[in-house]
């Protein structure tokens, strides 16, 4: 399950809904990861662009990896503006056993940061400034620049 929301996420509701959805699925471990906008560098917030077709493909590959371990993943992300101390990202793993869940949430979140087609902008004085210095080139980048 992958959901994109306009603006900040309702974290308590999403965490609750996911827990309830799997309440009888017999998973022993549920590990959410919640990402919240920090007050730093004088920003007023963050803003996000998302390219959904590739995000969905990426997510489906990870869902298949989870399934191979008897686990499932869920993810929610904000599109547009998210202000200070609001949350922009939640993902989670449900699995029968804790080791799988602990390892999977780590791998999944790290690959999310490196590969998911989402672009972050700082909100500064009402302007959107692309956060290039905190961004990661997707694997395979640069092939069109080779002469």
């Amino acid at each position, binding site marked *: 399950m992958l959901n994109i929301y306009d603006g900040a996420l309702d974290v308590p509701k999403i965490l609750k809904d996911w827990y309830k959805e799997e309440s009888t699925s017999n998973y022993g471990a549920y590990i959410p990861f919640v990402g919240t906008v920090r007050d730093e560098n004088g920003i007023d917030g963050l803003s996000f662009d998302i390219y959904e077709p*590739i995000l969905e*493909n990426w997510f489906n590959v990870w869902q298949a990896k989870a399934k191979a371990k008897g686990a499932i993943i869920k993810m929610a*992300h904000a599109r547009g503006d998210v202000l200070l101390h609001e949350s922009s*990202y939640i993902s989670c793993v449900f699995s029968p056993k804790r080791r799988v869940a602990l390892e999977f949430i780590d791998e999944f979140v790290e690959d999310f940061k490196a590969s998911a087609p*989402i*672009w972050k902008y700082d909100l500064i004085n009402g302007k959107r400034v692309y956060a*290039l210095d905190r961004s990661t080139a*997707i694997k395979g980048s*640069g092939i*069109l620049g080779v002469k």
Partner: protein
Amino acid sequence: MIRVEFLGPIQKNALEIEITNLKELAKILQEIPEMTEWLENSAVAVNDTIVISLDMELKNGDKISMLPPVCGG
């Protein structure tokens, strides 16, 4: 016709061009000065699948996307 879309922070309208492979696309984009940096740090997807080689023929109606560095979360 091939459609080329520039995603996220690349401030450029989509192109509709007649090309048959990705090497032709590279040549065309390399002639656009404001694309230089993006060509070096962006990934390329054909029909929403990221490719890691230019050795790919294109067919009429294919969609190409350029994906600059990402930072979700």
